[in-house]
């Protein structure tokens, strides 16, 4: 360091002031999104428990039409995807982009708040409509068709300032790794969302092609929206907290562009062997396997970045969650490849392994990265520190065990279902064997969702206390192991 201590001190102070100003400018919308997202997550996990129970014991809580599996399961998924997923993603995107580009949110704060409120109201009506019997039965788009223009408008209210911040920022070489992903997510989601909704709600009937477009939509939203946000957050927080620069710019760039090029092709393999033209499902299956390349590249890069810094994950809650999420990215890639490849996909088609893919990418990967981000962002916005190490630790472990159970059990159940379906012994039997054999796996899914519900209850309470400003008043961040923090974490990590 060439500078004298006094100037570096004032530099640091100016830096901190600038950061505080940026944080303050995005505080209201970001906290609003996180809090509401946490409520939806809570609801979604409870619905997940109920849906799993209803799949085993349909008479649980009586034969009420509003809670039959066919209505609960879509409500559970929609609450997870639109209530929690997109909302939390928008909050993380806005904050990271503001910080990364060094831009304050200048105007339109009230518009952002209004958009967030409308988003929540619309989803409330949409999910109520599904439960009341207005479902469209189009997977991930079950909410009635009035919701999509409103959701799109709300999303664009957020996408616009995020893109503007990026456009105005000073961008030196190598600046963009995490912002590439966030910008990509901003850009792709509306495109995918409009395409799928126009095709399925506005065009006059696409028959079986519509089902293919729906499968493409689900994979598109996962691979080109939730994955980029999760990876972007990982690329932002891992270097920031470990104090290591990203290991390889080439790997980062290659990982991004291969995802961008391959992501749009996958999805239709869900209906392989079905009525769709064979080339469509084949190309979906091929890219489903090829997506292992970007997944592997990002995984390798994170691995190289964190080499020798693993102890930091023991003390920093953010790093621990992001670490785990980043670990689940390759797992989700492998599950997708298993579902897509012809020789395994033939068994796994129409089984719970598709649920395993949705959950490993939505919860194991995306949500864990976002939890990490929230543990970092919220103290900076609310001006107080997380209250309890124990709550964070419980949240982490119950989530890890819960989502691990769901993914493993759903995969094994998928294998079992596929084997049952293709067992020549069963060709003239009723479906009894299939139903009885998969029962145990669904029970374990219910238990796992119950664990996750419990962990999210703690997360929700903790977050609410923070948002209300009842956190710890301290200048030291809440770390999981205090004896480590001096050695493991560089000073600037928690600025």
């Amino acid at each position, binding site marked *: 360091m060439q500078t004298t201590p006094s100037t570096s001190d004032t530099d640091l102070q100016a830096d901190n002031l600038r950061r505080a100003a940026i944080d303050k400018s995005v505080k209201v919308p970001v906290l609003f999104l996180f809090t509401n997202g946490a409520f939806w997550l809570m609801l979604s996990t409870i619905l997940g428990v109920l849906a799993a129970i209803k799949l085993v014991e*349909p008479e649980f809580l009586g034969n009420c039409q509003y809670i039959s599996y066919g209505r609960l399961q879509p409500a559970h998924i929609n609450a997870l995807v639109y209530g929690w997923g997109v909302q939390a993603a928008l909050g993380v995107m806005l904050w990271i982009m503001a910080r990364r580009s060094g831009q304050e949110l200048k105007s339109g704060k009230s518009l952002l708040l209004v958009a967030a409120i409308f988003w929540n109201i619309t989803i409330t009506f949409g999910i109520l409509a599904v439960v009341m019997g207005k479902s469209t039965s189009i997977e991930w788009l079950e909410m009635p068709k009035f919701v999509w223009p409103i959701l799109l408008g709300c999303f664009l209210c957020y996408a616009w300032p995020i893109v503007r911040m990026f456009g105005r920022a000073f961008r030196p070489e190598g600046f963009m790794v995490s912002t590439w992903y966030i910008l990509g997510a901003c*850009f792709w989601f509306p495109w995918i969302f409009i395409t799928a909704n126009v095709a399925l709600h506005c065009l006059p009937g696409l028959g079986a092609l519509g089902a293919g477009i729906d499968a493409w939509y689900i994979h598109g939203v996962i691979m080109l929206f939730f994955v980029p946000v999760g990876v972007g957050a990982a690329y932002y927080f891992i270097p920031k907290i470990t104090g290591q620069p990203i290991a390889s710019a080439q790997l980062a760039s290659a990982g991004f562009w291969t995802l961008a090029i391959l992501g749009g092709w996958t999805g239709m393999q869900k209906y392989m062997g079905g009525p769709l033209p064979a080339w469509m499902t084949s190309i979906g299956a091929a890219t489903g396997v090829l997506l292992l390349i970007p997944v592997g590249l990002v995984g390798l890069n994170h691995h190289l970045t964190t080499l020798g810094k693993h102890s930091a994950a023991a003390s920093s809650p953010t790093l621990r969650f992001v670490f785990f999420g980043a670990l689940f990215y390759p797992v989700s890639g492998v599950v997708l490849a298993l579902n897509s490849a012809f020789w395994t996909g033939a068994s796994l088609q129409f089984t719970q392994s598709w649920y395993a893919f949705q959950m490993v990418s939505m919860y194991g990967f995306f949500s864990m990265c976002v939890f990490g981000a929230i543990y970092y962002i919220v103290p900076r916005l609310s001006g107080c520190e997380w209250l309890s190490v124990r709550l964070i630790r419980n949240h982490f472990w119950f989530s890890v065990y819960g989502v691990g159970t769901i993914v493993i059990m759903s995969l094994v159940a998928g294998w079992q279902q596929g084997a049952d379906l293709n067992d020549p012994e069963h060709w003239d039997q009723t479906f009894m064997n299939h139903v009885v054999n998969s029962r145990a796996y669904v029970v374990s899914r219910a238990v796992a969702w119950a664990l996750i519900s419990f962990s999210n209850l703690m997360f929700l309470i903790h977050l609410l206390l923070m948002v209300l400003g009842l956190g710890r008043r301290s200048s030291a961040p809440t770390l999981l192991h205090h004896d480590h923090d001096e050695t493991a974490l560089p000073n600037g990590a928690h600025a």
Partner: protein
Amino acid sequence: MTNFRTFILGLTAAFGLPWLCLIVLPAMQYQQLIPVAYDKDKDGVEGIYPPAPINAQGQLVYVREGCNQCHTQMIRPQQLGLDGWYKGWGQDQEGRPTAPVRPNVLRDYLSEKYALLGVQRVGPDLANYGWRAPDEASLYQHLYSPRSVHDWSTMPAYTQLFKVQKIQGPVSTDALKLPKKFAVAAGYEVVPTLEAKQLVQYLQSLKKDYPIPGQSAAVAAAPAKK
């Protein structure tokens, strides 16, 4: 790549190509898809294909209840699964069909706004359920109380599609005949509502294995036969 415009162009190109090839062009092509006529000499049958549309009114009930969460409507070719050989999954209801049911093609779903190919296969496939559907009374019983048919069933009981009413005068002709264990209180009867009737008509109309024009009936039914 610090150039904003290059970056956005790159994103557009990377996603635009699959978007165009997988969604836009096929959707435009699909609009040209029309029913075709059978050739009496080659196919041995007359009329147009697909011959009979599904019952759209009943499909609305199927959609509303999310039946596709557990039931697929898609027969896969033999290299992917045994679907075609399952007893009763096609027109041939025999225990050992001579040929497997043919896999589905795009035209099978021509009259449907959105083909309900299904999310998971928790229950049996329904693509050709119309052929194996039992009489209406049994179907009503299955919808009203699945466990009275199979005690292991995990299908929800769609009691909201039925009305429990007091018997006035003679018992209604379409009243359900339930086994003792599942019967309603004495003096009452269970009758299907209009929605239940529509749903049953829809289930009976599910027949997606008519021969494809151009492939003779025998060939269409048995592609693997030497």
